[in-house]
């Protein structure tokens, strides 16, 4: 196992290196550079010489390969540069915002797994009965509601019915007010988890139904084992593999969804950071953020692969 993880980490470093090159290129390929966004149509008022001076100020006048080399060198020293727009260190910006995104992502994943698997199990065991149909309809509704819309509805109801709109203020940190912090994070997480739980429920249900149709389950029943033991010990455990796989894959999607939720609730996470960096063509910030996101997703996938071993003892990596 240790060997496996080490091997994977080596691959991870190589991936990051390749990704860094890709990111650096792609970010600069987006039409309309930083100066165009900074100056807008006013850019036309500047002569070529003035533009050149500005490019020099931002280090954009050097050859592409040279810029990349300098950036890579700094990355290895843990320095992702300064944001063009805010003049703040990129690492500091990401570190400050990462926590909120991780909190939402983890909480939304947990909530969706918990509710999705529970509902999936219920609906599989009560197959084609009223409860099953009800749960499937609920899941479909959950899947169909866009999170940004649901988020706005939640905000509006809170503000108009209760005059309560805590996201207008900056939400307190964990240290300042733990309870309030958790509540204010939990509501957006719940909004995100809604759609995800619908998906998890469907996967759990179909995986369970597939497993339950297998011969060893029939054997288990014919041995006289109770319903409970067969469903939970024999069936569910084997049905967990696709659920775990799905959750791992979901994480990448989650980072996309978190952008929308952060936007709606005015939260400051990595998602909105990346979005703002794109709109302003803030190259250092954008590169740094994408690199960190790739690192995060890779680590989650690694964790999922390692988890397989625990979920299904037949999977061995050595």
């Amino acid at each position, binding site marked *: 196992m240790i060997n496996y993880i080490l091997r994977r980490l080596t691959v991870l470093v190589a991936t990051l290196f390749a990704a860094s090159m890709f990111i650096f290129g792609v970010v600069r390929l987006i039409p309309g550079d930083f100066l165009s966004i900074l100056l807008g149509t006013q*850019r*036309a008022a500047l002569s070529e010489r*003035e*533009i050149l001076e500005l490019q020099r100020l931002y280090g954009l006048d050097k050859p592409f390969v040279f810029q990349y080399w300098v950036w890579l060198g700094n990355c290895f020293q843990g320095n992702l540069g*300064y944001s063009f727009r805010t003049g703040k260190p990129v690492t500091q910006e990401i570190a400050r915002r990462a926590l909120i995104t991780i909190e939402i992502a983890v909480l939304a994943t947990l909530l969706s797994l918990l509710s999705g698997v529970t509902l999936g199990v219920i609906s599989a065991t009560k197959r084609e009965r009223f409860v099953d149909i009800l749960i499937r309809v609920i899941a479909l509704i959950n899947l169909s509601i866009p999170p940004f819309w649901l988020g*706005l509805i939640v905000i509006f109801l809170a503000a108009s019915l209760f*005059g309560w709109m805590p996201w*207008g203020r900056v939400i307190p940190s964990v240290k300042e007010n733990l309870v309030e912090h958790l509540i204010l994070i939990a509501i957006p997480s719940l909004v995100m988890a809604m759609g995800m739980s619908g998906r998890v429920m469907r996967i759990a249900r179909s995986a369970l139904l597939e497993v339950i149709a297998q011969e060893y389950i029939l054997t288990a029943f014919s041995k006289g084992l109770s319903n409970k033991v067969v469903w939970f010990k024999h069936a569910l455990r084997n049905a967990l593999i696709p659920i775990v796989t799905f959750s791992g894959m979901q994480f990448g999607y989650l980072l996309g969804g978190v952008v929308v939720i952060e936007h709606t609730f005015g939260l400051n996470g990595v998602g909105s950071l990346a979005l703002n960096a794109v709109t302003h*063509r803030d190259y250092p910030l954008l590169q740094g953020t994408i690199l960190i996101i790739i690192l995060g997703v890779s680590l989650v996938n690694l964790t999922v692969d390692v988890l397989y071993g625990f979920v299904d003892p037949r999977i061995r990596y050595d």
Partner: protein
Amino acid sequence: MLRVGGLLLVGIAWLLAAASCALASEPKYGGYLTIAKLRDVAGLDPNVTTAHDSHRVFELIYSRLTILSPQLLPEPQLAESWEVSEDGQIYVFHLRRNVKFHNGDELTADDVKYTLDRILNPATGSPVRTLFVAVKNIEVLDKYTIRIELHYPFSPLLIYLSIPEASIINKKIAETQDLRRPESLIGTGPFRLAEWVPDSYMKLERNPDYFEHGKPYLDGIIIRIIPEEQTILAALQGRSVDAAILETGAVAKLARQIPGIIVQAVPSLRYLPLFVNSAKPPLNDQRVRMAISLAIDRQALIDMVLEGEGVPTGPIPPSNPYWAVPVQQLPGYVVDLERAKRLLAEAGYPQGFQVTLTTFAAMQPIAEVIAYMLNKVGINVNIEIVEYGIYIERWRKADLQLGLSYNSGQPDPDFYLYRYFHSRGDLTFIHGYLTDPRLDQLLDIGRRETDFEKRREIYVEAQHILAEKLPFVWLFSRYEYMALQSYVQGFTLLATGSIVYLKDVWIEK
């Protein structure tokens, strides 16, 4: 100063608007004001950054030689007084004494000279350099006196000295630090930077050494960034913010319905033109452009896409009432589809023609309505939506037939007309170098004339020429909005969108 008196009358409308919030009693001290806004700053160098989002911060942290009154006239700020020579080519400014930067340094004429020289130096890359090219020489006469010599009389100077890009910076800091870093945000303004989490909030605290005695009244301001306007609306309703800068007419309308919310609205200096590239047929024909103008029902456009929250504009927006010719007096503003069709036929397009309108996603609804209106006279508009950055690139190269994006404004007619329509202007490429000798002449004397009455006559004629030639098809101006909880007192919103008058605000609870 008599000519300024005439302008005062024009400003009464603004005063009335401002008066609604100035009814209250004595100002009270204390408290933080939380103000919500959609976006954070786009850059920190005050002399270079033209983004309005950055300006809102520069206005509070820095000061300038002059400040715009609610009537948009230049008034003393860092310059306590000034004298203008007979020929209008020499300005002598007397600075306030004992003005302190936030780091304790005293502001002197050296800082002013340094700032203006910096803007004028092409190596700085300041987009507003073109506004100050009339400046020939800047001389420090003594610690508190500065003399500006001009190449030619240039009456917009006092107004241009009030713009956020003309914020006076600290010479010592500019020479030793990078002005793009937050540590360098050190000015002489009513508030100083205390804490900043980008895209979340910026905390500004009262500058105890501020030069206007007794001001500001607030302990500080928290600028809270909420990227979704609907969420801002909910925050106003839930009273978790005290004020909000709104951008959409529909949202402003909803905000007005919230009990305890007052929305200040002033016509904006920004305007929306339909950019027309006249370099190639069919748009090179003046009759075709007039047909476009006649086919567009501006009021219907405003009603449809802005829910009525806008005003039709000519070459100078109605937010500049002293200078702007009312659109009813300009040709091409009364919808006339028959005449439009006749003009197209005369120009050789009896069946109409195909044209591409390039813009970006936010403008799509407006583009759709324009396409619909032009279709009625046979002009088939193909709408091309590109990403904003790409749009800017295309605009810069005039790589479009029709374009649609807002243009910013300054409270002086010269700004609207010279750069775009004088043959020596730097932005004439956008309409395909459509210039006119009489217009050149008018714009030349317009910027030299110091008598405001005479100046106005000059610009009235210029606007008539432009409305005939139509290098742009001017559409409308929107409003600038500030929503305030009713306990926020003393605020005046300027047509520039400036929030500099937060220095006069107090909380009445």
